[in-house]
């Protein structure tokens, strides 16, 4: 039985923008926390090894920022990711939980270690000896990185589920093709973000002299050195992507290519600045430059996350669940019985539609399209298909996976498809008060033929 959920209307905002925006923000904060742990270990080690009191002062000051930003907003945006995913695609998060709950529960045990070690350091670091301080920071850093390890496997599984498709083995799904390059890339990104935020904190924090700032900034910038590996690891990631996904990044989908370029370009600029810092020993990064580099790092994160989300299309879990939360088998089923026939949730504003057919069309739109499209806002159907002729609409929607290979096949009856077509035309005409119902048997027969020719499978070949 298909699990129907109430679907909310986000107005002119595309749902992907909501989860994407929050996701980018959360990933940036989480990576800051992971890299920050490593950075603090290094400085505490310097204090223990060389009696570097400046390093110790830096640790105490930076950790306060880490707690205020990462432990509060970072932790809560993590919860927000979960709750927002439920709002956007409950079935996707449900499947992820069903498959990986034990690994998620494992990740949770590391969250607990992170909080325990983090707060122990936050409260007592000032009166603890160097060895205990370093131990706490090491435990914190390992726990933070392990949380990345677990979530990385689950997220990369969505794009490259690999052997899981054959036998549902969670380990085959977890250690999938993109697992290692993604994990290494994120680790490098975490170190770079931590270094850049540290450069900003050193500049804005009171209590450091100009010389001390200079020394600290140059030291934190060494955390950007591993970025040199990013092109190799990024290339590895691209190489193991499915061919269709790679094709979209490499020019097949201009939005995807642009975001990829944004991410790569921003990373390149940061890398170039880091090289300049290493090459010119007298170069300093002031607060404004550090802030600009942090913005670039945020843009790089945004580009990377957008691409990671985008190249999964038409799936949220490749070869398993389409973006609109319908499985392959259900496409065939809905072609027979209709996708909204058993949907218990009526339209909230049904009275604003002049005919029952338009109400049906709106319900089909809500179920199959609204996850990625609005009617007239971001990624609006009016912008994409408003000018199509009526026959073009019928054919293109019936053969949706042929029209665009990153679209799922239409999952409904000819009547539902025609209702959707009429809805698009009606919206295009400015929602007139009267609208003829289209019930021509010949039209429905043609749609049925087109649907049959299109089949129920995606255009993305399953390995």
């Amino acid at each position, binding site marked *: 039985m298909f*699990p129907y*959920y*109430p*679907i*909310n209307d986000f107005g002119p905002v595309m749902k992907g923008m909501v989860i994407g925006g929050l996701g980018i923000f959360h990933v940036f904060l989480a990576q800051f926390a992971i890299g920050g742990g490593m950075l603090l270990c290094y400085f505490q080690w310097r204090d223990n090894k060389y009696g570097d009191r400046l390093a110790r002062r830096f640790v105490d000051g930076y950790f306060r920022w880490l707690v*205020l930003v990462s*432990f*509060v907003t970072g*932790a*809560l*945006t993590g*919860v*927000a990711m*979960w*709750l*927002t995913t*439920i*709002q956007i695609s*409950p079935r996707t*998060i*449900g499947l992820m*939980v*069903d*498959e*990986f*709950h*034990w*690994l*998620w*529960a*494992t990740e*949770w*045990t*590391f*969250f*607990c*270690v992170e*909080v*325990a*070690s983090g*707060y*122990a350091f*936050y*409260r*007592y670091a000032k*009166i*603890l*000896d160097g060895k*205990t301080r370093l*131990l*706490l920071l090491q*435990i914190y850093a390992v*726990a933070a990185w392990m949380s990345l390890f677990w979530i990385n496997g689950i997220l990369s599984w969505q794009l490259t589920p690999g052997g899981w498709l054959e036998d549902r*083995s*969670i*380990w085959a799904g977890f250690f999938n093709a993109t697992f290692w390059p993604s994990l290494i890339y994120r680790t490098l990104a975490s170190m770079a973000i931590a270094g850049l935020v540290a450069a900003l904190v050193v500049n804005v924090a009171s209590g450091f002299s100009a010389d001390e700032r200079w020394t600290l900034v140059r030291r934190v910038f060494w955390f950007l050195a591993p970025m040199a590996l990013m092109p190799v690891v990024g290339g590895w990631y691209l190489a193991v992507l499915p061919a269709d996904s790679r094709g979209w990044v490499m020019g097949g989908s201009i939005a995807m290519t642009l975001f990829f370029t944004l991410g790569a370009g921003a990373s390149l600029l940061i890398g170039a600045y880091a090289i300049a810092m290493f090459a010119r020993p007298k170069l300093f990064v002031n607060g404004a430059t550090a802030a600009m580099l942090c913005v670039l790092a945020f843009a790089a994160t945004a580009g990377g996350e957008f691409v990671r989300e985008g190249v999964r299309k038409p799936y949220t879990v490749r070869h398993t669940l389409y973006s609109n939360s319908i499985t392959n088998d259900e496409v065939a089923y809905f072609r027979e019985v209709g996708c909204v026939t058993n949907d*218990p*949730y*009526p339209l*909230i504003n049904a009275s604003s539609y002049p005919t029952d057919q338009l109400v049906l069309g709106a319900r089909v739109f809500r179920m199959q399209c609204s996850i990625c499209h609005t009617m007239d806002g971001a990624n609006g159907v009016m912008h994409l298909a408003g000018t199509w002729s009526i026959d073009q609409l019928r054919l293109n929607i019936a053969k949706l996976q042929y029209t665009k290979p990153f679209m799922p096949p239409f999952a409904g009856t000819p009547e539902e498809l025609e209702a959707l077509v009429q809805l698009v035309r009606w919206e295009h005409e400015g929602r007139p008060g009267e609208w003829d119902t289209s019930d021509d048997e010949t039209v429905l027969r043609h749609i049925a033929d087109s649907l049959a020719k299109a089949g129920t499978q995606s255009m993305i070949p399953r390995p």
Partner: protein
Amino acid sequence: MFLLELPTANLLYLVLYLATLVLHVVAMNYVVGGAMVVAGAAVFKVFRGYCDATQAIVDKIVDWLPLALGVTITLGVAPILFIQLLYKHAFYTANLLLFHRWMAILPVLIAAFYLLYLQKTNWIQQRAAFVRALVALGVLGMFLFVAWSWSENHLLSLAGEGEWVEHYSAARNWHRSGELLPRLAMWVIGALATLSVILAWQLRGRTTTAVVRRLAGIGITGGVGAAAAGAWYWTELPTEAKLAIRQPAHLVVLATAAAGLVVMLAAWGHMARTGRLSTVWLWWATAGIAVAIAAATVLREVRRYVALHTVDQWEPAVEAAINAARLQGFGVFALFLVINTLVIVWLIARVRSRLHAHAN
């Protein structure tokens, strides 16, 4: 008893859900109870100053509240995970139906979190009493909003498809239920009882008679208040739920909860009379409140069982959990649960030993 009728896989998930929920509730009680005490004291101080005992209690709570909230949120992750396995459809549906209203808990919690840190700063200590009272009331209001939202979400998840469709059709942002207020009152007032016990452990060795009596007052208010709110809640429960709770096995759980509460109240009564925090009596109070919370959490599930059974959602939920159940990965979880628990215990012990060394 419905627990014993569950398939093994469901029972395992349910036990983990309840165990992690109890941990979450204990931490949450410190936060909610603490926010109530701090807000009450701050308002009181607008009109007249308070004694050293109250000051000692407020200082301790204000100092620990940010950590307590961090722990509460972290411990809340596990029950949210297991509830998705057990009651996915109902939980997701309630989330979706409450939409913006439900999602508002996140920015509210972030704001409350930062206000807790603000309460610790010298800056706020130097502000006028009414400013501090406003901040403390703001924090409390935010936590009560979150508590209200969770209760509402929970009750809506029990409502069943008929009510869900009606809620959606009417584009409602609120779910009204007669159970909401008494249920909320029981958990919120009961938070004071947990707070009193944890605070007593925190202040042990540095207490005066006045502090002990204040703590006893908080604990007894929490215990008696929760019992009274529980009685009110009983009157609002549907007949099916009352019948289910009257079954012998569930009556045992109810009696256990009551016994736990009585033990806690007796322990606080004794400590209030003597004016001394005795370790033995504090252990009794701790055991009492722990048993009461655990039993109340089980009774909470009885209510859910009855509600979902009534609206034909129980069998599908059980079946869905069976389909999702798998052992792969369980070993890794069990291994890291043990290792990471040991790591946490070890690091706390290490820090404590260093603090003792530093103090001496």
